[in-house]
């Protein structure tokens, strides 16, 4: 890519935007620390952070709120980047790990585990992402095979349609399984499917962190290839990219990000859609600029939605996934209306 003047401008613009959005994430982090059933003023939060809080304040902040917020940030970034990859490789703006059924596959695998070992959900933080990855991986392979056609490769709309069908199939199996659970586990599973950032302690942060730390830079390193995918397959192929191989590698990364996020955060949808779209509006479609902004926007949305979900009603928590789909579904429909038929 020739470093012309426009590219230079775009770069400065996107760096500015990265700073702005990082700032927004930090601000929303601080607001989130203050809000919840147990109210703490900003000054109390700072006091607690530097080590001068009461026992109860320490407990709430360090053991309940902080891990949950870190998870919100990681989950948001993971899902948003996963969506950006899927949209890139399928050349379809409406791709999202939730809509394609990848999240459903991940949650089915976790559900099978909960059904088989009902008493070990808390002790298996590190196992969950792997289980979810197996489920999501199988689902992705299934969707890929079913929508693949000889000589034509993957056709974007068919991919979405197959995704919807596979998701419907998985939810049929999921329902059979949930009916076998006892009420206590059922409540847990239903909450988790809706995305409630259930694993709010440091163990789950540690279980999720390696995935994010490894996969996000890897995807960023692949940005030239993602940019090439926006050309058509023949053109990209003639530029020396082995299309199907790269597509599979990136699909693998997208599945890994989505699966680990779903395992820890639950079935949060639409972030993979919202993050990249908002990012494209701000810095344009080039992936070197768009990917970091997507991740930040994703984090911001999950963090803010979780704060809303926690403070909207006393005593009861609305799962964050519901709040996000209230925002995300209308946006998806808006995109559907705007996009060319």
């Amino acid at each position, binding site marked *: 890519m020739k470093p012309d003047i426009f590219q230079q401008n775009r770069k400065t613009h996107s760096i500015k935007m990265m700073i702005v959005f990082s700032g927004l994430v930090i601000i929303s982090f601080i607001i989130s620390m203050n809000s919840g059933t147990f109210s703490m003023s900003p000054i109390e939060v700072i006091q607690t952070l530097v080590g001068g809080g009461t026992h109860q304040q320490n407990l709430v902040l360090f053991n309940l709120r902080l891990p949950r917020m870190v998870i919100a940030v990681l989950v948001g970034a993971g899902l948003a980047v996963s969506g950006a990859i899927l949209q890139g490789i399928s050349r379809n703006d409406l791709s999202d790990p939730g809509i394609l059924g990848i999240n459903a596959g991940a949650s089915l695998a976790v559900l099978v585990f909960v059904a088989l070992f009902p008493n070990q959900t808390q002790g298996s933080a590190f196992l969950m992402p792997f289980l979810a990855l197996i489920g999501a991986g199988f689902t992705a392979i299934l969707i890929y095979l079913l929508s693949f056609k000889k000589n034509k490769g993957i056709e974007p709309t068919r991919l979405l349609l197959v995704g919807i069908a596979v*998701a419907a199939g998985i939810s049929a199996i999921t329902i059979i399984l949930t009916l076998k659970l006892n009420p206590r586990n059922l409540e847990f599973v239903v909450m988790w499917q809706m995305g409630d950032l259930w694993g709010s302690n440091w163990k789950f942060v540690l279980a999720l962190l390696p995935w994010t730390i490894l996969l996000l830079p890897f995807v960023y390193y692949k940005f030239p290839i993602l940019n090439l995918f926006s050309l058509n397959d023949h053109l990209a192929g003639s530029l020396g990219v082995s299309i199907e191989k790269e597509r599979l590698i990136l699909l693998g990364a997208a599945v890994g990000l989505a699966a680990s996020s779903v395992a820890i955060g639950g079935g949060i949808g639409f972030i993979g859609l919202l993050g990249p779209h908002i990012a494209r509006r701000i810095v344009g479609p080039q992936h070197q600029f768009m990917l970091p902004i997507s991740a930040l926007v994703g984090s911001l949305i999950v963090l803010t939605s979780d704060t809303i979900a926690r403070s909207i009603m006393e005593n009861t928590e609305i799962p964050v996934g519901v709040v996000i789909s209230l925002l995300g579904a209308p946006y998806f429909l808006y995109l559907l209306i705007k996009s060319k038929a």
Partner: protein
Amino acid sequence: MASIQTKNSYQVRARPKAAAAILLIGLMAIILAMAASIMIGVREISLSTLWHSLFSFNPEDELHEIIRSIRLPRVLAGALVGAGFAVAGAMMQGMTRNGLADPGLLGVNAGSGFVLVLVFAFFPKLPFEAMIIFSFIGAALGAGLVYGVAFFAKGGLSPVRLVLAGAVIGSLLTGLSQAITLLYQITYDLTFWSAGGVSTADWLQVSVMAPWIAGGIIAAFILSRFITILSLGEEIAIGLGQRTKLIRGLATLIVLILSGAAVSTVGGVGFIGLIVPHIVRYLVGVDYRWIIPCSAVIGALLVVLADIGAKTVNMPYETPLGSIIAVIGIPFFLYLARKERRELA
């Protein structure tokens, strides 16, 4: 199979003999399947007991009581629901010329379910006669949202995009329903409801639902001549002097009544309205005067048979009917999605 679409596009092709045969054989098959469904269960029941319970009922006999108050309403509900969904699907596919139209896929069932959850949460004591009305309202809400999106889209939405809109609106409404059930602690009820099934159907539900479904099917049959013309395309229909807006409006109303009534009893069961009309069109051609009654018969048969599956797959436990039908429906949907048809994309 691959050539159906080209064949039925511009000439009305009908096979009245095949259709008559389907109606006749189908009705007999339904009676046999119903009898089988009544006899199969945790308590095995012999044919002679079934016969006696119907024609010389003895209230003292426990088996007679099981047949009369549990098994009979269950099979009747299954047949009604199947016929209702199938005819609703046929009407939708005919009037929108969309091979992927189905009340489950296009948000109608989800809308109905959402309003029913509201009713469960806020008026748990509401009688079933009133609940079914709310189910109609919900069906209209779901359909209105999906078609509203299509209305605002430039140049309308292609079938695939309509399905996408339906899926997203469905997931939004389901999410809202789940949130409400959590707040009002009725999660367990909803899970059973969304699994779909007729295992708890009673005479009250059957007697409230039956007139709506029967009326809807009869109205659909009366309208079927116009649906055939509409399925040829808007221009042709207008050219033939049809009042397309009126026909569409009436047909939509029938769809909402049929699927609303069915959902209120069976819960979240999809794909019947998708599969059955395709099979029927393949067998009898594209004349909706035949498609509508044949869809009703095949739909009823499908659900009665699937319900036998729901009872027997994992005896003595019930398997959700919705899942059984999804297992049949999803490969079919995938087959339709994979078929090379330009008008879908």
